[in-house]
């Protein structure tokens, strides 16, 4: 999870390193800690540290982690020679390491030799059938080859064994959403919310998928989850405020004849609308007129 302070720190370090001030090593450590994907910058600044003999020796034993990080970034930026050299050095230093073997298999993946990479992963799994990262790489490879149904099958098998891996649940939910299998995506998001109830972004994604499914019950549940996002973020999430407005108007359209709980839902919608207008006035005043016309059209249809 990247919090606001961490994000500002990351941006500040990035600006500092881009404009020539020092601090490349701290930037690389922060990127590694937050697990963000900044492959170009990591490659550029990582190589600048590794090519400089003085800086490299000052790192001590942490230079190998840096080699690994730069190798993965190089594969992402398609600089396969750099990656090959890094992995060769790592292999010389750690001849029996499985971690290096995994990097070599990833290099095969990046080159596009899917069959060899598949063979390498299967051999790793024979030695150790419970290696989480190898399972996940196999899923990623199926996804990269375009075999989405195979990826779903592998991922489901993985999740039967390792049910607590919320990254995998999130990946599965996103794959289902991309295939428009919304009911299954709803199940995955429910698992995520169960394991991490205080992360508002899961609630938001769940509410989005429920709203997309439609139907009176789903819309009412979606409205509840948008409201919980607002609760968890202290009202700062614009998307949830919009979500409440849309849900209320959609529910009003569906349930035109029945008059239950009209007052409460109208009050909630008007509160959300005022909060949105205040937010826009503060941050983007030129778009305020667009917002008011859009909200008016929602209210009229409900």
């Amino acid at each position, binding site marked *: 999870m990247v919090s606001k*302070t961490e994000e500002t720190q990351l941006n500040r370090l990035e600006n500092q390193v881009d404009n020539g001030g020092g601090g490349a090593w701290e930037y690389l450590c922060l990127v590694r800690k937050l697990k963000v994907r900044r492959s170009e910058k990591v490659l550029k600044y990582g190589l600048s540290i590794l090519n400089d003999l003085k800086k490299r020796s000052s790192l001590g034993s942490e230079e190998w982690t840096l080699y690994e990080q730069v190798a993965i970034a190089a594969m992402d930026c398609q600089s396969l020679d750099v990656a090959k050299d890094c992995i060769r050095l790592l292999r010389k230093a750690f001849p029996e390491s499985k971690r290096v073997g995994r990097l070599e298999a990833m290099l095969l993946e990046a080159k*596009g030799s899917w069959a060899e990479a598949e063979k390498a992963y299967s051999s790793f799994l024979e030695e150790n059938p419970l290696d989480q990262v190898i399972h996940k790489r196999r899923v990623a490879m199926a996804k990269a080859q375009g075999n989405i149904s195979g990826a779903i099958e592998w991922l489901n098998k993985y999740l039967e064994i390792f049910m607590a891996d919320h990254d995998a649940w999130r990946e599965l939910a996103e794959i289902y959403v991309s295939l428009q299998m919304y009911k299954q995506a709803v199940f995955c998001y429910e698992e995520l919310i169960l394991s991490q109830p205080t992360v508002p972004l899961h609630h938001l994604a769940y509410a989005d998928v429920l709203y997309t499914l439609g139907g009176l019950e789903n819309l009412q549940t979606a409205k509840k989850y948008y409201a919980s996002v607002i609760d968890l973020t202290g009202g700062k999430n614009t998307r949830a405020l919009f979500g409440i407005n849309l849900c209320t108007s959609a529910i009003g359209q569906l349930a035109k004849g029945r008059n239950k709980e009209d007052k409460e839902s109208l009050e909630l919608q008007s509160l959300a609308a005022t909060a949105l207008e205040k937010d826009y006035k503060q941050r983007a005043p030129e778009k305020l007129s667009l917002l008011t016309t859009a909200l008016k059209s929602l209210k009229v249809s409900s």
Partner: protein
Amino acid sequence: MAMSLGFVVGILGVVILSHAAYSTVQYRGLLKIMEEEFSGPPLTVVAELLLGLGFCMWAALTVPGTFLSIHPYSEENRIVSLPDNLDFMIFNHRARVFPVELDLNFKH
């Protein structure tokens, strides 16, 4: 000053509790000699237990200092983005066809 007083009271409370435990064990031994049932520790031991409990609780609340409240949606703790799933990273994206033109060489 308040910290050390809290510490002293805490240690005193622990000592009282252990003394109560020791006297209960001794009382039980005495009952075994007299071959009577062990219904409960004698009243003095119960009073000692309550005193020790009070001391320990007071010390536990005073020693750590004032508690800070948790702000789940303060500006610092707000979760901005979920981590990019690096375990599932694929290299088959657009940058494969449009590689970044960086003149990077590995000098070793």
